[in-house]
């Protein structure tokens, strides 16, 4: 039963990534695109974690952690750039 | 002496816990490394922690976090319903100015984060004097009810934790 649910979750996040990609391409404003990229990062983290469940290894969480950190910093940097025109003040 | 070495005891404690969780197995070496980090990082970043806020009732913090977690899950179902089934014309979004009486910056930050994480509301800005939060609500036909809920459900609890 868990294997079935795992496949379902994989499918859900894959479709979610696809929806984000569609939104990234046809978003009307720049902040919308940043939001789409940020959501893609979070969905990718979910995929990594699900892969960790599938292979029953505890090593994947480090990849998820790194992606979470870089994703957060890059989103904030994008926003700062749009707000101020510079990132490092 | 101990105070000089650990200017922020809570931060040091959190660093030890986080390092042990990151390493994942309890070993003496990891504990030593955790202690080194817990001493070095607060000292190196002391510049960015100018004043220390005091927790008056720290034991109330875990129940608060539990309440927020339950609220996040409960309210997410509501937002899911709005997103999935409501026609877009029916969603009444609104900007709401929520007054805050908390004084400690940490407490206001936690309140703002709580408002953002409970779905349906999102903190967008704070007034320059730190007394009002600008909140965007996904569906708020009654802004006053929203203000009341923030004040009674979250702010009152935070006040008990952060203020005497």
């Amino acid at each position, binding site marked *: 039963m868990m294997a079935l649910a795992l496949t379902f979750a994989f499918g859900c996040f894959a479709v979610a990534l696809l929806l984000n990609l569609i939104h990234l391409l046809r978003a009307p404003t720049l902040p919308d695109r940043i939001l789409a990229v940020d959501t893609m990062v979070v969905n990718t983290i979910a995929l990594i974690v699900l892969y960790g469940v599938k292979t029953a290894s505890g090593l994947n969480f480090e990849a998820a952690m790194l992606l979470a950190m870089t994703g957060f910093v890059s989103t904030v940097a994008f926003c700062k750039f749009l707000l101020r025109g510079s990132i490092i003040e | 002496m101990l105070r000089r070495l650990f200017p922020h005891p809570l931060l040091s404690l959190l660093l030890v816990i986080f390092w042990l969780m990151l390493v994942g197995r309890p070993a003496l070496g990891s504990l030593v490394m955790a202690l080194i980090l817990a001493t070095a990082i607060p000292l190196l970043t002391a510049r960015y922690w100018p004043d220390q806020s005091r927790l008056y009732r720290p034991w109330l913090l875990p129940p608060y976090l539990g309440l927020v977690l339950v609220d996040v899950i409960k309210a997410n179902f509501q937002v899911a319903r709005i997103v999935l089934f409501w026609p877009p014309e029916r969603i009444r979004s609104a900007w709401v100015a929520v007054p805050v009486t908390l004084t400690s910056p940490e407490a206001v930050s936690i309140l703002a984060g709580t408002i953002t994480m409970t779905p349906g509301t*999102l903190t967008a800005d704070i*007034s320059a004097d730190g007394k009002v939060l600008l909140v965007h609500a996904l569906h708020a036909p009654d802004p006053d009810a929203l203000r009341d809920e923030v004040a009674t459900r979250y702010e009152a609890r935070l006040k008990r934790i952060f203020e005497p």
Partner: protein
Amino acid sequence: MSLLIDIALAALLILSGLFGLIGSWGLLRLRDPMQRLHAPTKATTVGVGAAMLAAALALPWANGSFSLGEVLVAAFLYLTAPLTALYLARTHMHRTVDRRSLPQPGTGARWASQDDTLDDA
């Protein structure tokens, strides 16, 4: 006992998939840019949180090792999601929202992002 864990894990995984999907679906479906901020920052975070919880439960059960790393990643995501949302909201306000449509603080001060006397954005 193992059947119970199996059911709990399956429920968590299905919940996480559904919330992830709802978050991204809301991103596409909602009309207003500020409304669109609501769905992904929260529903998706809950979806990932449920997946993390499933991983933290499944690993000790599968191979006996206990790992708290997933809990750490989930905590990190929960702490950073409000900040990401705050920055995105500010960017939206800066670029697309009409300032006059916002309510005023009412204390005589202005909103921090519109107060040019403040140094920090």
